[in-house]
């Protein structure tokens, strides 16, 4: 056997390795174009900021926990659609599907759902301690805050946050379960 042949074998092995690596990568993001991936990278943070903005202004302007949560869920949908199911939980959140089949992140989404419900109900029941009716809300205006000026601290925000977590958890659970079917 000549040296050339050995070198050819080596390069073939390197080619195979590169090919498997490419196949692995392609299994993550099969057929999504660079354009789509780049656009999503830019857009997802914007969507999340909008969602949080709507959540924060929800108690006295249009917006609120529900629409904020829906927008957050759409950001996740984009990531799922463009980067695939596994990208989020394997590379981003660092989770591994325990039993292989089910989407591991779904378990966390369920917790989010329960925690949100508990928060919303808890914020509703807090006034009971003070002898006020269920869901009674209060508001506190903080003045002379550096950079921000006046800040409105509303107890309704706790309820909104609960709604937000519940809806995000619920929608993502549905998404994860349906997506992994």
């Amino acid at each position: 056997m000549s040296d050339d042949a050995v070198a050819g074998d080596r390069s073939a092995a390197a080619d195979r390795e590169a090919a498997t690596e490419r196949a692995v990568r392609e299994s993550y993001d099969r057929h999504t174009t660079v354009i789509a991936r780049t656009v999503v990278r830019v857009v997802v943070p914007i969507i999340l900021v909008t969602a949080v903005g709507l959540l924060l202004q929800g108690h006295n302007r249009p917006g609120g926990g529900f629409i904020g949560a829906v927008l957050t869920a759409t950001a996740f949908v984009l990531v799922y659609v463009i980067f695939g199911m596994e990208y989020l939980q394997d590379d981003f959140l660092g989770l591994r599907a325990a039993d292989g089949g089910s989407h591991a992140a779904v378990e966390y989404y369920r917790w989010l759902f329960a925690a949100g419900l508990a928060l919303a109900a808890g914020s509703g029941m807090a006034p009971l301690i003070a002898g006020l009716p269920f869901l009674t809300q209060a508001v506190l205006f903080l003045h002379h805050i550096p950079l921000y000026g006046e800040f409105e601290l509303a107890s309704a925000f706790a309820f909104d946050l609960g709604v937000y977590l519940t809806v995000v958890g619920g929608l993502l659970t549905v998404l994860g379960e349906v997506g992994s079917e």
Partner: protein
Amino acid sequence: MTEASALGGVLPLVLQGALVLSAVLTLAVGYRVITGPTTPDRVVALDVIGTNVVAIAALYAMIRGLGLFLDVALVLAIIGFISTVTVARYVTEGDIIE
């Protein structure tokens, strides 16, 4: 009264003209959605409708001076973007989430 009228001059007229144009365009594109020979035609037409609705919301916000309609436009734009991406992926792949 409203911001647009406070601006005065030709602006309200332009805004209302743009509103009418967007509405007419939406209806015209509706024809493509219904007849459109292939699915991509319909997807593009629906995307145009979505964009037009965003434009209408934004124009309405300007005419009436209602900032909250800008929120509506923003949310509509985001949802329209996602629906187009998702449908496009469905058309090309036959599957939405890998």
